[in-house]
C-alpha cells in the first residue's frame, strides 16, 4: 500500500469510528487500526508491539502526527476533564474524495471494525485489542490460557475481564470471516 492510500484508510477509519460514536482519542484510533490490520487483513503495514494500553504502533503514532502537520487531521479539545479527540480536517476530507477506489476497496472492512468497536471505551479497547494480540500469537490456545496470558502481560486487567475479551475476539473473528 502506498503512503497516500495508507493515509486515506486512516482517514476513512476515523470517519467511520466517529459515525459509530467513538471518542476518537489516539488510543481509540490505535486499537481500531490494529484490529483493521490484524483481524481484517488490511495491509496498512504498521508495526505493532505490546505497549500503551495493548497493541501500539509507533509508526502509526508518527503518521498521525504527520497527518496533523499536513492538516489532514486536527485535535479537538473536549470538555473538562476529558482527553482530546482527533477529527478529520477539511484537507483530509478533500483527500478522501480524491481516492474513491481505495475507499471502495476497504469500505466493508473499515465499517465492520467501526461498528464493532466504535462505541467502546479505552479500557474495553485495551482488553479487546490485547486479546486479539495474544490470540494472533497463540491461536490454538484455549480461552483460559489466553486470558491468563493477558492478565500476566497487563496485571491491571482482571482474569474475568480478559476472558470476556478473548471470547468477544473469537466471535468477531468468526463474524468477519466472510468479509476478509
Amino acid at each position, binding site marked *: 500500500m502506498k503512503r497516500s492510500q495508507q493515509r486515506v484508510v486512516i482517514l476513512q477509519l476515523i470517519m467511520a469510528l466517529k459515525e459509530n460514536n467513538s471518542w476518537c*482519542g*489516539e488510543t481509540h484510533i490505535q486499537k481500531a487500526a490494529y484490529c483493521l490490520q490484524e483481524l481484517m487483513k488490511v495491509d496498512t503495514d504498521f508495526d505493532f508491539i505490546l505497549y*500503551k494500553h495493548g497493541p501500539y504502533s509507533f509508526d502509526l503514532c508518527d503518521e498521525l*502526527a504527520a497527518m496533523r502537520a499536513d492538516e489532514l487531521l486536527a485535535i479537538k479539545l473536549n470538555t473538562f*476533564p476529558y482527553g*482530546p479527540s482527533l477529527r478529520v480536517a477539511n484537507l483530509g476530507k478533500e483527500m478522501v474524495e480524491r481516492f*474513491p477506489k481505495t475507499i471502495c476497496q476497504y469500505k466493508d472492512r473499515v465499517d465492520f471494525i467501526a461498528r464493532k468497536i466504535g*462505541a467502546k*471505551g*479505552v479500557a474495553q479497547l485495551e482488553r479487546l485489542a490485547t486479546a486479539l494480540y495474544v490470540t494472533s500469537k497463540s491461536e490454538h490456545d484455549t480461552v483460559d490460557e489466553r486470558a491468563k496470558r493477558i492478565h500476566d502481560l497487563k496485571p491491571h486487567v482482571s482474569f474475568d475481564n480478559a476472558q470476556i475479551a478473548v471470547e468477544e475476539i473469537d466471535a468477531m473473528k468468526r463474524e468477519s470471516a466472510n468479509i476478509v
Partner: protein
Amino acid sequence: MAALCHDIGHLPFSHAAEEELFPPGWDHERMTMELIQSDEMKEIWENARPPLSSEDIVKLALGPKKAKELQFDDWETMLSEIIVGDSFGVDRMDYLLRDSYHAGVAYGRFDHHRLIDTLRILPPPLYPYGNQLDNSKEPSLGVEKGGIHSAEALLLARYFMFTQVYCHHVRRIYDIHLKDFLIDWLGETKYPTDIDAFLKLTDNEITSDLRDACLDAERPGHIHADRIINRKHFKLLYTRNPTDFKINSDAANLVKEAAVKEYGEDKVRLDGYSKKGGITDFPVLSDDGKTVLSALQESQVLAKIPSVVVNYVFVDPNIRDEALRWFNKGKAQIITPQKEEQK
C-alpha cells in the same frame, strides 16, 4: 547505566545517512544493543555491585519502540520512558540543552530542575464511555499541576530548536552533502558493524578524509567534499508553504520529481522532516492530589504548539536562477492534484 549507554551506537556525525551507511537490518540502536551486550561491557555489568543485567540495560536504554523483540512490564516501560520517552525523556532534555549551548542559541533552555521535581507516575486522563467513565489503570509518566509550565517550556524549547536550528535549510542541505560524501567515501562497502572496526572510526577520521577528498579531485566523494568545505552547497528551489499546501499536500514531492525530469537526479535534492510522536498529551495531577487531568485540557499553550514540518527542494547553485524561472512558469501545472482512477 542505561541512560549513559543510550547513544553509544551512533555513527560519526550522529544520524546523518545512517540508513544508507549501515548494512540492511542495522541502525544505531542495534549497534547500541551489540555494544551493551559485548563481552567487554558484560564484564563491567557483572562486576557492578549489585551485578547488572545487560538485557535490563538494553531495555531501558532503547525502550519498547526500538527493542521490539523484548517484552516490557509496566515498570520497565516507565523507566525506559524516563530515558527515551517522547514527552519527558532525559535524552530529549539533554540534547535540547546541550545543542542549544553549543549552537549558541537560547531557544533550547527550560527549567529542567523544576520539571524533574514535579514528574509523577499517574493513571491516564479520563475518557467517557456512554454515561460512565471507562478508564484504563495503566500507569504513565505525567506531572503535578505545578510543573505544567516547565513542561510547556520543554515542548516550546523543542519546537523552537527544530524550527530554528535542526530544520534550518542550510543545516539540512549540509547534512545531505555529508551523507552523499559518506556514501562515496565508503564505496561498495557498508559501515562496519564489527565492534572493534566500528569503534575505530570517529568524527576525526572522517573530517580529515573530507579535507583530503576536497583537495584531490581523484578521491571518492570529491565533489561533495568540495561543496561542504568550500561552501558551495545546493540552494533552495522550493519550500513547503501554506498556499501550495492547501492545493496539494504532496507539492514538494511533485516539484522534486519535475525538477529531476528537467535537470537530472544529480542536480536536485529533496528533504523533508515532520514531527515524530503522537499528541503531546500526558496526565496532570491536580492540586487536590487525586484528580488526573489531560495536559491539553490544563494548558492552552500545549494545545497550540504547531507541529514542525518542513519540505525543501534544493538545486545545484549553478542552475538555481534558471530553475527558479522554470519553476515559476510551470508551478500551477506541477502541483495540481490528480484524482485516483476508478476501476
